[in-house]
């Protein structure tokens, strides 16, 4: 049996090797992310672009800091590992089960406009989903000011997305990193859960079932999220489909044979705010 000093020396050597291997691993990741153009060409390079600052941690053999919290961080892990159901670039198969090239994965909410539906578009620019990120952005702006860092507007899209996904902002002192993680934890968690609740569309078939929201309810005036035509699978009937985001985080939907522009203002005062799409 090996003596204790021998074991300690081997353990110390292993820890030293881990740092060297971490550097090798970082090098491999950065090489994988390098593309001729600055635009990421796949999910892997997109992840590395977003998590560039997060990957600078000393020991890559330890889990990322956001996983150390006792709460369920799986939604955030799914978003960071590019496996959500509400960001278009995370889907490699189209509706017809054919492969879609990464650069042709357009935002499904902005169709028929062909806008690249990556994380930056969904979280920051998409007119349908970006309002959900506004509270988190406001909170991050305050935190950046508190830590005497550059203002939110001075960052490009990639660091902004990284901060929304609980990465450490650039130029933050190492002694403040843990405080930043703790302060931004509720903000970012709330953001991810609101995206999960709001952007995962329900099954169109179940949407034709009651309950339907009261049409003249004033609380729904600013909460309408999206409106589009869908085809009900079994009956093959096209109907209009509206999705609402309520203040308590729940969502509901209902179908209507007429588009919002044909509805009477008295019945649906909120309908003019919905984005309507032509009948296909």
């Amino acid at each position, binding site marked *: 049996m090996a003596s204790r000093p021998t074991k300690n020396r081997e353990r110390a050597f292993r820890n030293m090797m881990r740092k060297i291997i971490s550097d090798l691993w970082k090098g491999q990741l950065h090489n994988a992310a390098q593309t001729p153009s600055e635009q990421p060409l796949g*999910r892997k390079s997109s992840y590395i672009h977003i998590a560039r600052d997060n*990957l600078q941690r000393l020991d890559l053999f330890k889990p*990322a800091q956001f996983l150390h919290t006792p709460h369920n*961080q799986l939604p955030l*892990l799914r978003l960071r590992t590019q496996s959500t159901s509400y960001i278009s670039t995370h889907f490699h198969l189209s509706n017809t089960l054919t492969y879609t090239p990464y650069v042709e994965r357009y935002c499904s909410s902005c169709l028929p406009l062909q806008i690249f539906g990556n994380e930056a578009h969904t979280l920051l620019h998409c007119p349908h989903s970006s309002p959900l990120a506004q509270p988190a952005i406001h909170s991050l702006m305050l935190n950046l000011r508190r830590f005497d860092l550059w203002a939110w507007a001075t960052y490009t899209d990639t660091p902004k997305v990284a901060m929304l996904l609980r990465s450490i902002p650039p130029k933050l002192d190492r002694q403040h990193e843990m405080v930043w993680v703790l302060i931004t934890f509720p903000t970012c968690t709330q953001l991810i859960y609101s995206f999960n609740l709001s952007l995962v569309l329900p099954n169109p078939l179940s949407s034709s079932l009651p309950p339907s929201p009261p049409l003249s309810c004033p609380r729904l005036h600013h909460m309408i999220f999206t409106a589009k035509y869908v085809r009900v699978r079994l009956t093959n009937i096209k109907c209009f489909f509206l999705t609402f985001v309520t203040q308590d985080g729940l969502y509901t939907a209902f179908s209507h044979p007429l588009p919002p522009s044909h509805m009477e203002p008295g019945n649906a005062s909120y309908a003019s705010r919905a984005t309507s799409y032509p009948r296909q």
Partner: protein
Amino acid sequence: MHLATVEAIRRACQVQALALAASYSLQYDKNSSQLTPTQNLGLWKAIVLPHFLQNLWYIQSGTDIKKLQTSLNLSLARALHVYGDHTAFLANTGISPLQLTKYVHLAQLHFRLTMTRPETLPALLFKKLNTSSPLSHMHTTTLDYHIRHATHAFK
């Protein structure tokens, strides 16, 4: 070592089923609740990961290493129910690619044979057989070649 790879994958799958069953049954235990992702990851690291790492330094074929890596990626994804990009997943959970882990193991073995236990029989054989011959003269399938290749990778 192809059979060792197949056996490692088989055992890992078998143990992973056990880990999933333990995790599932804990949901219905009166004294405990559903495991957090960190606890699930710890459970997976404790009982499934060792099967992938056990004989790693003997496996020389690149195809076998890739096969092990694919199996590890799938196993980890199933354990946490996250089916995203594998590179991102490994970086977030702190599990290095097997090729890099193999370098660590081989360098550790080299350290053991040359520094901490130089008086043992394997260490004496390693010293006798390898000090004189340059790396280019060694056969690529030997363990000694891979040890020295790994130590060269760090320089």
